[in-house]
């Protein structure tokens, strides 16, 4: 069993895990950070997106040991105390969710999008960049609005 050490939401963590343990399993089952979701077993839905060394990654499609030494940020690591991250606040303000299952992945993907593409995102860019995140409730309309507003608020 490989020993893994990484930083999750600013905290150093270490554990012995089975080599098969996916990063998402480690986050949810070992660390009890259940905000990161699993929506598929084909690496397509994006409910599991977290940031690994600042890049959006599907945590269902990497092993925990691949994050050895990495800085991992999950949805739980965004807010400062009771103050929501601007992207979270924008999803609330613009009603960018219904059941909420896809939301953590959407928000992590949205922040990654801002990191790569800047704060001024048009609708076409947002829709295109959301290729890897599926939502079965909202029809995406308010998610797109929320991301545009959140991106501006992050400036």
């Amino acid at each position, binding site marked *: 069993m*490989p020993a893994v050490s990484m930083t999750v939401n600013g905290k150093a963590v270490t554990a012995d895990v*089975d*080599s*098969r343990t*996916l990063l998402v399993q480690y986050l949810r089952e070992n660390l009890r950070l259940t905000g990161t979701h699993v929506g598929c*077993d*084909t*690496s*397509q839905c*994006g409910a599991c*997106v977290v940031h690994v060394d600042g*890049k*959006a*990654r*599907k945590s269902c*499609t*990497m*092993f925990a*040991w*691949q994050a050895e030494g990495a800085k991992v940020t999950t949805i739980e690591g965004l807010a400062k105390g009771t103050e929501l991250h601007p992207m979270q606040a924008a999803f609330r303000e613009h009603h960018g969710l219904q059941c909420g299952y896809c939301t953590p992945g959407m928000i992590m*993907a949205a922040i*990654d*999008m801002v990191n*790569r593409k800047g704060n001024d995102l048009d609708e076409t860019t947002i829709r295109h*960049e959301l*290729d*890897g*995140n599926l939502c079965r409730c909202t029809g995406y309309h308010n998610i797109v609005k929320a991301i545009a507003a959140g991106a501006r608020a992050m400036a």
Partner: protein
Amino acid sequence: MYAFNVERPATLKDAVALLGKDSEAKLLAGGHSLIPVMKLRLANPSMLIDLSKIAELSGVKVEGDTVTIGATTTHQMVANSKELLAAMPALAAVPASIGDPHVRQAGTIGGSVANNDPNADYPAACLALGATIITSKRKIEADAYFKGMFETALGADEIITAISFPVTKTANYQKFKHPASGFALVGVFVAKGKSGVRVAVTGAGANGVFRVKAFEDALSKDFSAKAIENIKVPADGLNTDIHAPADYRAHLIGVLAKRAVMAAAKG
């Protein structure tokens, strides 16, 4: 998923030695083809040899008439290379059509070319551009490398280290995406380079990526969409599945080839 051991070698030499010792071992690059099939228990390697610690395998180099892309260069790194964009815009544009942003931040060119998925994009680019697959043992021409669906000329203990492409300006890739998976239902890469005109098709062939000789001959005489307008690609040997019948795929090959020629000719 079945149990396996993990090795994370720091050098190519160590990786080759590990791979040679265990016939059930598998290399792990971006994991975006391998991990999903391991989850489905369709692959059960005894050992995963992770290539991510071998720094020399990653990066894009443009030198003279040749572009060389290291095996573990991610799709995103290829898409972001300004040098590549200037030297070979058609190749630089390929990764933008692969999967989604998260897939592109993980998946690698070497993994894609080693996997040779019949609907993948890079195999078409390699075959049309006359790429050379450079391995830990030898150099393999693309024409001799792609052997069939998920089959390549790679030996069991062979590692792709890089893929090199002759700089080709007149080229274009057109992809008809499967709306759910994002993979190519059909993709056509057209290139007019030093070794003539080459047309490669992915997504359609029952044996994976292939070249269309009739298009190549016609385009060598006249590099225009008109030149191939009346050439019908036979549906024999093309895939029929729930997504599309063979004759529809044959039709798409013609349509996409014409679009690719028009775009390539414009530059």
